[in-house]
């Protein structure tokens, strides 16, 4: 087996445990999309084109509630903005790659692929083939995500409304936040953003997600600045 193929499969093997929550999340997304009234093709297109779980749920939820395209797109963008960190963090490792590779790897870069590849890259800085590891982990997550979405789309059309599947939207986001509930500054931001979203829920154009996000991020910035001043 060539070194490239070995690295590709190492990426796949290493990302496997992180895929355990991805499968039910993809299924939930597909099923929720059906419940919110989208066509199978539209739901699948969000997985194929947007390809970012949390942001796809925000997209479907806002669009179905009658938010304008501008608000939907901006909110989706805000949710995805954390990916900026991953790109920045990998830019040094991947700077010698061709444009085509950068395009492909950018598309495949996700929370999980970042998590495993970052560990591998730090240990293998000088390996010229290390991008095959990111290709393997990124591609496999992508494949599993597409399949899980399709299963969810299929299940969504047979699961009865009475089960309250739409409740899995807030539930999924609680699950994505649990690790932050151990830090007091994050808990403060969480409570501020949550309270604001209720107060601003009837703000025009369904802008409550963006407004709450930006105000709480400003508070976070003030907290960072204040902490820094105190440490001096």
């Amino acid at each position, binding site marked *: 087996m060539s070194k490239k193929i070995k690295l590709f499969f190492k990426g796949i093997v290493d990302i496997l445990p992180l895929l355990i929550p991805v499968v039910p999340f993809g299924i939930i997304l597909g099923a929720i999309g059906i419940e919110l009234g989208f066509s199978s093709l539209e739901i699948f297109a969000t997985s194929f084109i947007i390809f970012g779980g949390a*942001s796809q749920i925000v997209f479907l939820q806002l669009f179905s509630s009658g938010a304008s*395209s501008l608000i*939907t797109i901006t909110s989706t963008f805000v949710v995805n903005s954390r990916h900026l*960190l991953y790109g920045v963090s990998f830019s040094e490792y991947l700077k010698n790659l061709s444009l085509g590779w950068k395009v492909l790897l*950018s598309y495949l870069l996700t929370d999980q692929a970042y998590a495993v590849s970052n560990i591998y890259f730090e240990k293998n800085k000088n390996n010229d083939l290390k991008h095959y590891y990111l290709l393997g982990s990124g591609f496999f997550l992508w494949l599993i995500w597409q399949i899980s979405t399709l299963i969810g789309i299929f299940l969504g059309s047979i699961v009865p409304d009475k089960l309250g599947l739409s409740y899995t939207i807030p539930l999924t986001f609680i699950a994505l936040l649990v690790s932050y509930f151990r830090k007091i500054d994050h808990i403060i931001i969480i409570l501020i953003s949550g309270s604001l979203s209720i107060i601003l829920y009837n703000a025009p154009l369904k802008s409550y997600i963006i407004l709450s*996000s930006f105000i709480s991020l400003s508070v976070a910035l003030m907290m960072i600045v204040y902490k820094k001043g105190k440490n001096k």
Partner: protein
Amino acid sequence: MIWYAIVISGVLNFLTKFLSLSYFDTSKMNPRVKQILTYVPSAVFPAIIFPGILIDTNGDLDLVNNPKILASIIALIVGVFSRNIIATILTGLAAYWFIIFI
């Protein structure tokens, strides 16, 4: 309309990753920007969570006899202690079904 929105959202998500991967230099980046980005989930997700639990289908605040509140608190406690995403979702859903069907 929805197709434009899907494509634009997809392109923006791709560009966020592609531009930062291709043109950003970590050493030149303001550390404060890096720090603030770690707060994005804590600032964005609650704005999806709280209305999803507390606002009913008519758009009104629902704080009384709302099974989602108790189910979410149970899910959160299990989540914080187990740090397990699936356990959190399944506990919350099980608690919710338990309350509404029993």
